[in-house]
């Protein structure tokens, strides 16, 4: 990088807030808050459910983006952390229900969040420690093996606590309603009979509750991941990703950076997992197959490795599109789309994704919404040179605009 760019502009991601940007964020926020209410009122309850699910995938993509995008460690077993979060949350949650007073039951989910996060982080360290010395492609295979081992162990009802392929909670057990849901269901409803054919009948559903929880979790994830990217640790990840030897000779602790990447990436998988389990009221090992890991990797790669908006867009495209198509078809809103056609669409999805992964690597390895630094790394040298010249020019003439010329 030319000139003093690296010294002055240590803050990589955020630009300055312009009025247009603020307006855009406010609009986006309104859409996020109001659109599910409209869907619910119009009787399209499935939309809220799908939006909540897609929100979970966004969290997963953001979490994996730490490992794959920031630190450059290809993790093909990320879904294992999702599984560990879901199972540890549900198992400890259902056990603790027996010992805590009933008054605490509604808070069980919220208490499970840090526990699931801690378990996932521990699993991340457990995976990270032995593979510290491994190179990229070996690492990918080991993480794949780790993911499969976790799934097989759960599927085999290890220690008698995972209930095997039948899933959790067992018959007779349950996951309690989270705090506030009951009250909202009883108090938050209204009807506008003049709108549409059947009127606008809104009643607060549990899907809506979980949707808002997931949106809040996503916002927290985005905030934390952004701060991580701008932190000292984030810079050491970039340095490690670009050149491990050079980074370590500059004083970056490679082992530390890798372990932090695995642990901090796993945390979001774990939180998403326990939320998924409570939202679905059920977990079973078939939600955590290798293909699920691949879809999360796809989201990150197609969105743009190392880019936070990229991970979000990738998750929306890869996980959202087929879910919405399926939801619309199942609801009969699109006439003439039979169940067979829907399953064909979801099968062709995988075919197309495979193709897109290859084409993306060849033509646009930086992804749809790339992070600038990552793009420079993946593209040919002349691109980097061009960028350097531009930056040098900027440096000499307008030292105040680094934030804008930098990432995103």
């Amino acid at each position, binding site marked *: 990088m030319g000139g003093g760019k690296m010294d002055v502009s240590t803050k990589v991601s955020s630009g300055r807030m312009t009025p247009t940007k603020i307006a855009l964020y406010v609009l986006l926020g309104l859409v996020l808050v109001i659109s599910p209410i409209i869907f619910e009122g119009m009787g399209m309850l499935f939309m809220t459910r799908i939006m909540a699910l897609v929100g979970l995938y966004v969290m997963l993509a953001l979490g994996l983006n730490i490992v794959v995008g920031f630190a*450059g460690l*290809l993790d*093909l077993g990320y879904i294992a952390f999702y599984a560990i979060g879901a199972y540890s949350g549900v198992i400890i949650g259902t056990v603790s229900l027996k010992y805590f007073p009933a008054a605490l039951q509604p808070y069980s989910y919220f208490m499970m969040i840090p526990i699931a996060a801690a378990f996932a982080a521990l699993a991340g360290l457990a995976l990270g420690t*032995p*593979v510290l*010395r*491994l*190179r*990229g*492609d*070996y690492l*990918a*295979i*080991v993480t*794949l*093996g*780790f993911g*499969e*081992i976790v799934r*097989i*162990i759960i*599927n*085999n009802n290890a220690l008698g606590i995972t209930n095997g392929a039948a899933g959790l909670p067992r018959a007779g057990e349950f996951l309690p309603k989270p705090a506030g849901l009951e009250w909202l269901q009883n108090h938050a409803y209204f009807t506008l009979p003049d709108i549409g054919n059947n009127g606008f009948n809104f009643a607060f559903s549990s899907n809506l509750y979980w949707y808002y929880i997931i949106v809040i979790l996503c916002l927290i994830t985005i905030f934390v991941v952004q701060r991580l990217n701008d932190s000292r640790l984030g810079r050491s990840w970039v340095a490690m990703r670009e050149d491990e030897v050079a980074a370590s000779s500059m004083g970056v602790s490679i082992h530390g950076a890798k372990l932090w990447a695995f642990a901090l990436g796993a945390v979001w998988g774990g939180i998403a997992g326990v939320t998924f389990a409570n939202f679905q009221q059920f977990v079973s090992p078939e939600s955590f197959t*290798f*293909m699920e890991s*691949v879809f999360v*990797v796809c989201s990150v*790669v197609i969105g743009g490795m190392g880019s936070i908006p990229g991970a979000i867009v990738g998750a929306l495209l890869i996980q959202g599109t087929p879910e919405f198509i399926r939801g619309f078809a199942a609801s009969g809103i699109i006439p003439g789309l039979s169940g067979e056609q829907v399953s*064909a669409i979801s*099968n*062709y999805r*995988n*075919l197309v*994704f*495979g*193709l*897109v*992964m*290859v084409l*993306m*690597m*060849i033509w646009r*390895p930086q992804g749809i919404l790339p992070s600038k630094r990552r793009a420079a*790394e*993946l593209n040919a040298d002349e691109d980097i040179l061009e960028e350097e010249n531009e930056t040098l020019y900027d440096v000499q003439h307008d030292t105040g605009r680094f934030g804008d010329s930098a990432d995103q």
Partner: protein
Amino acid sequence: MSVQIIIEQFVNGITLGGMYALIALGYTLVYGILLMINFAHSELVMIGAYVGLGVLTLLTNQAFIEKTTAATPAMGWLVPAREFFVGTPLGIVTLFAIVFLTSMISVGLLGVLIERLAYRPLRHAPRLAPLISAVGVSIFLQNAVLLWVDSKQIPFPSVLGTSKAFTFMGVSVSTLKVVIVVTAIVLMVALDLYVGRTRMGKAMRATSQDREAAGLMGIDINLAIMLAFFIGPALGAVAGVFYGMYYGSIVFNMGFLPGMKAFTAAVIGGIGNLRGAMLGGFVLGIVESLAAGFLSTGYKDVIAFMILILVLIFRPGGLLGESVVEKV
């Protein structure tokens, strides 16, 4: 566990090991030359099994032949051909040759095509790029077979039936197992000779040692790489057909587990090392079969992953990784 069971598991282990070794050679050949894990290799094994099944069905399936000859009389030659292939010993040998050669050549060409389209443009890209591309190819091939052939398990005819080759210490060994092990060993010896003794083999070894220097010495690097991408998948296709015969059915995602295990075998032997992959295949096959006898079968598939992780951590170079310099 009686001695008999141990011997039986040992025989199974050698049979499995032969198949793992054949697949492992594909990983190790490509890794040796391009330093990349051909993630799509397991799918090529699967496609090899499907091609083999297709040829077998065309030549020997009574119902299929009756339907075909009724529809197109020009295909009438299938009826006497079937009698020859199924009825006579020479016929069975010819049948095997036809099935395996078709499968090997078509899958080998597919391997070359994949290299040309999905890997060659990424040869100078960062190492993550070809790996992600390979994952993409793998997903694509798996779903192509799922959509265009069948998503269900398809029974694979046991051409050799349940015929017994010989009995050893009270354990009877089927002809199929003998055929698998003998074929695997013959192919491995042939490959070893080819890479070790021929001019083209030397070119492949040179390319794997230093691609640029080999190019400067006038070696056609692309040809050497294409050869690796032909031979590896062709050997994998043989393993795929055997896999179908051995387990009696094939399915679109059948390649994943043997692929992972064969990769483990390649790593055990020292990835990039041909003899290491052969040794690793047999070691893994035997260890897995014996362990399956001790542990519950539910955990059978975890063993390979555990071994893989342990080997990578404690001896990342593999068993033969450092002692043998030659690598392709």
